[in-house]
């Protein structure tokens, strides 16, 4: 199928698991979701590559997924990176490191997010598009006075703390200059910042999701959203596992039912996709 070229990337960064003393793992439902995410993006929106590290590469190889990404697999960026970032605190920083290596325009796509339809009409007039606005829950998006900071760091006066954070499970950035600005702000906060928050979330969501909105506001670029309400039934394009991953991890019966429904939904659209058909042949 002909489609506008919106190069996207997935990230599997295993260092946070290792830093927390766990083996990297994904269950079958999460793997299936990642497969469908990559294949549906290729079908409707553009190429997609994977950024991962050596452990992630071995995981991908072991699960026979090396050919899933038509844009190839890059292990160099995440394996060789020497930035002073604590992966136990900034567990999604791998996405930002990958984005730094990817030229704009680019789309960062979480492996648990599926775009079911072409979205070039949404992206073509946008500078920045994220998934949806985040609920500014003060338990998650902490007051700046409560965030852990690196030594000799203070927040710039121009940060607008009233702007709503953006969910970046999907993030499109058109402009290289803005991308660098956003990533530099994020790196300044993450570098040498080792204070662990009790809930393991607030530091990361500030560095990734709140800062995106703050930087866009500073650059005077409106953030466009794929969804006005994440749980609206008028959503026709996006499936995102989001908090559902916890339930999937707790209950293998739910995994099976979810997987059955997902396959049933996309099997016609991917009926000519050799990778998907081989996957089904092995797993059904």
């Amino acid at each position: 199928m002909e489609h506008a070229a919106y190069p996207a990337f997935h990230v599997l960064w295993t260092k946070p698991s290792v830093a927390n003393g766990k083996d990297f793992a994904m269950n079958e439902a999460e793997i299936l979701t990642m497969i469908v995410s990559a294949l549906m993006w290729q079908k409707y929106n553009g190429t997609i590559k994977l950024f991962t590290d050596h452990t992630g590469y071995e995981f991908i190889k072991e699960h026979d997924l090396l050919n899933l990404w038509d844009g190839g697999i890059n292990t160099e960026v995440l394996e060789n990176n020497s930035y002073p970032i604590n992966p136990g605190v900034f567990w999604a920083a791998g996405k930002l490191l990958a984005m730094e290596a990817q030229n704009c325009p680019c789309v960062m796509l979480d492996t648990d997010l599926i775009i079911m339809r072409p979205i070039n009409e949404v992206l073509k007039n946008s500078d920045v598009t994220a998934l949806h606005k985040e609920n500014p829950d003060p338990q998650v998006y902490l007051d700046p006075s409560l965030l852990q900071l690196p030594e000799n760091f203070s927040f710039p006066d121009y940060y607008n703390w009233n702007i709503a954070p953006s969910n970046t499970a999907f993030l499109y950035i058109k402009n290289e200059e803005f991308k660098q600005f956003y990533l530099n702000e994020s790196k300044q906060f993450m570098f040498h910042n080792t204070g662990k928050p009790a809930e393991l979330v607030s530091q990361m969501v500030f560095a990734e999701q709140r800062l995106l909105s703050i930087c866009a506001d500073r650059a005077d670029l409106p953030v466009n959203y794929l969804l006005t309400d994440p749980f609206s039934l008028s959503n026709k394009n996006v499936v995102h596992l989001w908090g559902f991953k916890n339930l999937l991890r707790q209950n293998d019966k739910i995994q099976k039912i979810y997987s059955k429904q997902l396959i049933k939904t996309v099997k016609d659209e991917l009926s000519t996709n050799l990778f998907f058909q081989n996957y089904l042949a092995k797993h059904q």
Partner: protein
Amino acid sequence: MQFKSKITRNNHSAISDSFQKIIWALVVDVAIHSGHFETRKKLLEKYCEDENLIYTELENNFHLFFELLEDYNKTNDIRLYQFLKLQARYCFIDESSLDFLLTPPINRESIDKTRNDNKYSSQSPIAVSSAANGGIVGGHLIGLY
């Protein structure tokens, strides 16, 4: 050539009424009277042959259904109910029949409440809450609710 209309039949249009009764008897026996699924397999297999259904698929669906029903009855987790309802369809069990198997019976008011408790407060009247669907976005696109 004669065609059998499916339009006027109920949700169990894929199977005959007699098979429907056999299935319900099996489900009640296993779920409520602690009967053994294994002892009913031969009968189930015979009906599958007669009704052109794939027996192994139905058997797997029943195993999954009974396991999840057990999980639900232990926890009363409303998120499991949504999936139980889905899996019941694969076993030709409709929603009202399913509710008969639950201990205690499903509290519909709590489901309706979680549907209305959307923290995103969409102006759209057709939004579901993250509590009712386990936190998935776009679950309706893959038939989860």
